[in-house]
């Protein structure tokens, strides 16, 4: 209920919020539910995994646009002034508060407008193993790309978000890439511009 403590580090805010202000549930229920969703989508789209990827992304987008409000209400944090701050906010606060994990931020572009999140652990894909046909095309955790896309758009950051690699596909690590296209302008009421 207190005003945002700007002096506190984002890491401390994330940990404190997770510990003290967050109601928690068994991660396995989350994993199982997501698994039920993905497997049903694969069946519904007749194993057209490109369509499944798209559907997961749009589900994520719908989640993201709402989830960001929950995030802001919990943390009362202001907008970030640059992408470096944004990346820390996502990894140390957002991922911490919602999924209790802190992906590593890395692979910055030279313009500092794109970075990657390395998901060492991923509660969405615990105990998941993809069938051979799905390994080639399915981005199992693609809902996360959509969530970030939607959430960032709500704080006026127009970004592209996509998976570069995934352990489930046989890659050595799971990498999620975020690239800023532009900072959107706040709306101006009619007659004020």
């Amino acid at each position: 209920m207190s005003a945002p403590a700007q002096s506190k580090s984002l890491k401390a805010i994330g940990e404190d919020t997770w510990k003290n202000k967050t109601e928690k549930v068994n991660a396995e229920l989350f994993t199982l539910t997501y698994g039920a969703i993905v497997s049903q989508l694969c069946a519904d789209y007749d194993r057209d995994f490109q369509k499944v990827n798209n559907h997961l992304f749009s589900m994520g987008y719908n989640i993201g646009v709402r989830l960001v409000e929950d995030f802001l209400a919990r943390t009362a944090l202001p907008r970030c002034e640059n992408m470096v701050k944004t990346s820390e906010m996502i990894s140390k606060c957002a991922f911490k508060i919602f999924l209790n994990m802190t992906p590593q931020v890395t692979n910055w572009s030279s313009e500092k407008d794109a970075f990657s999140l390395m998901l060492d652990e991923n509660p969405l894909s615990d105990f998941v193993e993809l069938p051979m046909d799905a390994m080639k095309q399915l981005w199992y955790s693609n809902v996360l790309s959509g969530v970030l896309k939607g959430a960032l758009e709500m704080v006026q950051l127009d970004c592209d978000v996509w998976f570069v690699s995934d352990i489930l596909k046989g890659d050595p690590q799971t990498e999620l890439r975020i690239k800023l296209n532009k900072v959107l302008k706040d709306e101006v009421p009619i007659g004020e511009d």
Partner: protein
Amino acid sequence: MAIYSFWIFDKHCNCIFDREWTLISNSASGTINSKQTEETAKLLYGMIYSLRSVTQKLSRDDTANDVRSISIGKYRIHTYCTASGLWFVLLSDYKQASYAHVLQYIHSHIYVKYVTHNILSPYDFAANENETRGQGFRKIGNRNFISSLEAFLAPMIAQ
């Protein structure tokens, strides 16, 4: 400590919720979405918007330099602005300097719970382009939200 009215504006500059307790005398029930309040909402938004533009121009960088309260002859206007572009606005008397915690509570415990987490409620109250930039008319009509907000604010209403 007494409050007179409460408003929520969204990022499209639309008033998506308003509640006034001073319009009807001897009534604690107030009015919702009354036609009369439409003009007041526009004026209120315009004032905060303009002031905000001025303060942002005055500051060296544009981080976290929001208007928190405005004092006028007979009352105080408290504002709480989220990074997602929502404005929570409360009009009160002079007795309490800050209502920031009250507004933040409304955001986190009432708005998020009954609007954001409720899939049956829209998260964006402008249905199309024509309802953006202050031309929208849709309001939060969710009963749980309204009753929960009323219960929370009731003890602070001016007698």
